[in-house]
């Protein structure tokens, strides 16, 4: 993009006292790869021009080439800080298309995994807000806690970050006793560290001075920009997909939705902090009320049959072959399913024409939609406030560009 021909030039008057600063794609403070060309009057920002697409990997085109169960690793890489939520959301979309009824135990286990993922996502975001104000200690503490969650994921699915967790229809195996041990260890150790992290920053005078009344947005503008998730809740609107359209038995659990008032950085920090406490409470409730039952639904099109049957039964052998080669039959249809991701309403719009791959798959990515409001949010603020606003919005490059 030629800096001298930016469309912003047509709107501003021709005063050359403004300086142009390129907050370029590689920058230590932008956590992710996106560019902002700022027009500045000294330290105050007059306007910003974002450019994204530096990590565009063409997920939507790639999904048209892959069978349904091979799309799960792609969804991992959308919001890679909370990969299980994306995976389970995709599985639920396909289950909706097929019209499959999922057993209660699977739904509760999925809730446990999704809330763990939400905690990890909010951990990174809050730790990074701390780093951008200069508080590096919290970052190191929080990453240590993420290691505990990585160990839980490893017990369940084998991978740390890009998990590809579960299968269409449930899980490939029930949680082992070791996984439960690690979950209990997490539930006892993590609240202590979270409280310590809170004490570092929550009533810290310097942090509050830097974050209150910075990067705010009103509720009306936020709704017009289609915000969702913690950013919208910090602005005052209590819209949470888990409550508005409960999926996977969220209606069985008792939790509150934290809501802010100004929509500024401090409110977003506090909303995410409180959501982590609520997620811990949901996990505890799910473990207490966990019913017995099968750990997967009966989905012959996508769930691999057990090995004893494959070796002895002709039908199971044929299904095994078809599933692995991706040649199973799927009904035609057009379905939209959304889950509450770490950043907001993550939606999957799937059109199937009966073939082995989707006809069209569109991801409704919350980051992409609310990042549009960034130039408006930082207008008139200083450069360090702009950095802080960007990190508090939790913009993940994988979800921005897809």
């Amino acid at each position, binding site marked *: 993009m030629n800096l001298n021909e930016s469309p912003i030039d047509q709107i501003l008057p021709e005063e050359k006292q403004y300086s142009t600063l390129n907050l370029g794609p*590689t920058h230590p403070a932008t956590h992710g790869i996106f560019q902002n060309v700022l027009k500045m009057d000294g330290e105050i920002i007059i306007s910003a021009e974002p450019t994204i697409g530096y990590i565009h990997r063409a997920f939507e085109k790639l999904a048209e080439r892959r069978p349904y169960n091979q799309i799960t690793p792609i969804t991992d890489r959308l919001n890679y800080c909370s990969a299980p939520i994306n995976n389970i959301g995709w599985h639920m979309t396909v289950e909706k298309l097929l019209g499959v009824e999922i057993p209660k135990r699977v739904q509760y286990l999925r809730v446990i995994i999704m809330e763990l993922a939400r905690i990890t996502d909010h951990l990174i975001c809050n730790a990074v807000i701390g780093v951008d104000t200069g508080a590096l200690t919290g970052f190191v503490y929080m990453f240590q806690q993420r290691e505990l969650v990585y160990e839980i994921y490893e017990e369940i699915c084998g991978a*740390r*970050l890009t998990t590809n967790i579960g299968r269409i229809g449930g899980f490939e195996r029930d949680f082992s006793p070791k996984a439960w041990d690690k979950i209990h260890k997490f539930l006892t150790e993590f609240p202590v560290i979270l409280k310590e992290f809170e004490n570092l920053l929550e009533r810290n005078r310097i942090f509050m001075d830097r974050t209150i009344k910075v990067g705010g947005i009103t509720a009306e503008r936020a709704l017009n920009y289609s915000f969702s998730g913690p950013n919208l809740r910090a602005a005052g609107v209590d819209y949470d997909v888990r409550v508005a359209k409960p999926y996977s038995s969220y209606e069985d659990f008792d939790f509150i939705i934290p809501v802010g008032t100004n929509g500024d950085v401090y409110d977003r920090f506090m909303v995410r902090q409180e959501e982590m406490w609520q997620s811990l409470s949901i996990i505890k409730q799910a473990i207490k009320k966990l019913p017995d039952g099968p750990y997967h639904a009966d989905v012959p099109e996508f769930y691999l049959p057990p090995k004893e049957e494959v070796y002895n039964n002709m039908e199971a052998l044929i299904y095994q072959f078809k599933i692995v080669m991706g040649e199973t039959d799927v009904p035609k249809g057009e379905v939209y399913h959304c889950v509450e991701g770490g950043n907001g309403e993550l939606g999957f719009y799937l059109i199937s024409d009966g073939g082995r791959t989707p006809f069209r798959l569109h991801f409704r990515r919350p980051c992409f939609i609310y990042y549009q409001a960034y130039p408006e949010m930082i207008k008139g603020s200083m450069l360090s406030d702009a950095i802080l606003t960007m990190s508090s919005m939790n913009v993940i490059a994988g979800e921005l560009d897809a």
Partner: protein
Amino acid sequence: METVTNHSASGIAMAERPDGLEGAGFFATSLEKVVGLARKNSIWPLPFATSCCGIEFMATMGAHYDLARFGSERLSFSPRQADLLMVMGTIAKKMGPVLRQVYEQMAEPRWVISVGACACSGGIFDTYSVLQGIDRIIPVDVYVPGCPPRPEQIIDGIMKIQHLVETESLRRRDSNEYKEMLNKYGIE
């Protein structure tokens, strides 16, 4: 591979002493060995983290798998002050010129480590918008496969870079072979 063997009286492991002539108050060895030893234990990386591998890098820098014990305590985001360009994550074609510019701005001696399947070869993204491997635009020294690689694998890659740094000849960057290799990439 280099092993830390000498332990001082306080129990701190020191680096291994290279071969040389020793006497009362002097120690003579070749310059290459001393320079290699000094360079290898103080590499300043430039983390070029684009996507998921960047989060695993953050975990590597964290307290659990500490990368700072290998000398990489200070991350440098300015290419001029960095020794090692760590490319972690997918490089799209839109990002290619930026990566090339950052590499050209680095001062010699410089090394490049390509972390993750996407940086090595395009990974699972065999699409029109992803660069199929960064070695199409810049020369790479060590490749670390994985999607994403575990922190132990990243540290293994760093240790291999350390080996390359230690054993590199002082004249390599001026040699004709090196200049030819850079010309192949179109870098002056």
